[in-house]
């Protein structure tokens, strides 16, 4: 997947909420952040059913899918989401990360995080881990090169 060094490469990413989450300021923020890292971003918006996200992935073939949720159902919704997406032919290996305020208790649920990783997420970020997210994007070679 190493893409660095190829001039003119412009990564494409999808920013999406989960099925039950209607918050959008987080999505707008993640879109701007990725655009500033040189990405072309498709922002799917709020309350995204799993099928809709799968269709969008098949249509846009993104280099990265960023799921953002803050309503407290994130862990639970992301579990359903990753099981659905990983079972769709063509999406078995598409890079997928999730982050935000994922539970209702304000703490990282270690068990849930492990389950999400086991089910196929490439990374799970807590709300303050934007630095880690940037490093992840760079390490995957998903920064635009001009």
């Amino acid at each position, binding site marked *: 997947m190493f893409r660095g060094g190829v001039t003119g490469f412009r990564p494409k990413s999808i920013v999406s909420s989960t*099925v*039950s*989450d*209607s918050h*959008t*300021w987080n*999505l*707008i*923020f993640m879109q*701007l*952040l990725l655009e*500033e890292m040189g990405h072309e971003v498709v*922002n799917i*918006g*709020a*309350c*995204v059913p799993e099928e809709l996200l799968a269709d969008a992935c098949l249509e846009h073939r993104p280099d990265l899918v960023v799921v953002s949720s803050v*309503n*407290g*159902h994130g862990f*639970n919704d992301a579990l359903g989401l990753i099981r659905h997406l990983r079972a769709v032919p063509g999406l078995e290996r598409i890079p997928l990360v999730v982050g935000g*305020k994922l*539970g*209702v*208790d*304000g*703490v990282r649920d270690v068990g849930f995080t492990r389950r999400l990783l086991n089910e196929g997420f490439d990374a799970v970020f807590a709300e303050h881990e934007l630095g880690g997210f940037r490093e992840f994007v760079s390490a995957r070679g998903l920064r635009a090169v001009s």
Partner: protein
Amino acid sequence: MTADVDTTRPSFGDFVAAAQRNGHLVVQPRMGFGDLERMRAGLVATRAADAVSVGTLTLDSYTRTGDHEAARRALADGVKLNGYPIVARPDHETVELLDGVRDVAFPVQVRHGSSRPQDIFRTLTRLGLEATEGGPVSYCLPYSRTPLREAVDNWVESTELFAGSGADGRRPHLESFGGCMLGQLCPPSLLVAISLLEGVFFRQHGIRSVSLSYAQQIHPAQDEEAVLALRRLAVEYLPDTQWHIVFYAYMGVYPRSPRGAALLMEQAARTAVRAGAARVIVKTEAEAHRIPTVEENVRALEVSARAAETAGPPVTEAGESGVLAEARALVEAVLDIDPDIGRALPRAFERGRLDLPFCLHPDNRGQARSYIGDDGYLRWLSTGNMPIPVPVDSAVPSRLTADALLTMLHHVEQRYDRAT
């Protein structure tokens, strides 16, 4: 503490009116838990709080989006929900939950956030619950990707069902969420206009007791002006309706420190009283972090009630930054399209006569933008096709960066966290 009302069945509108006559601001939490015992404890504690309070059942996100199966599964699997799943739970559980807590001296309101609320309204009417919240626009654009036309149809059906459930003129009660929309960075005139229009929409579909909302923004003087504008328009547009103003404590990114959160809540309660609102919905010191506990909610109710007592005299004249004129222009532009508000609203958004800044919903045009002025007022940067001229001294629109967005979103948080 409770306000005296002389009816035998709970009437939310009468309760609030009586409290206002007696000089008490009604305080209300945004409380909702998936767990029955916790929810019950929350209602009992709200009632017992040292304040004139009303109770709340805030519903969870699965119920809001109509996925009652997911709510049932979560209950069965012990997954914690962000609210009370009133449809997924058998009716008898909700009856028991409210038994001996809810009565004429302690009305309970259901708050949800659903663009497809028919199941919720059917459940409410079955259970005899007389007060809830929402609106065809305010529960669609911030809460869903449902097409606005569909949301309007859903809300017509639901409002009419609700109106038929106890139509004695003072029950049932419906509150517009229009004064909040995305919670932050929407200039007051648009909030006032949407709230008013939804109130008239409820009236057109048979509801005779409504509340109009307005959420605290970033400048107390601008907020006072907005609430006075909303009251003025309500007098004109809701002549044969029982109405009051409900003021929401700040709905955007919250101070992280308990002290900053308390200061912001106190400001909300004072502004509410000064501007003539009858009820305030509080936030808590946990807002920035997680779902608040029962104790945090009670603390917030009492902090707000104490602040309300020292608010000082009501203001009769607010500053003139143009909120009333802008709101009136927006309301008239919508009514010009069609006097039937339900028919007018989707077209108004389609034509950009109403246009909500920073809203990702597909039916919103997205040509309007706002910014925070040097004077601390929330201002228009561009107004697209809305009937509002952009002031000549307005800032120059530039490309929005992630940092600039965060700075605006954290303006209030920073101010109050640093004041501590």
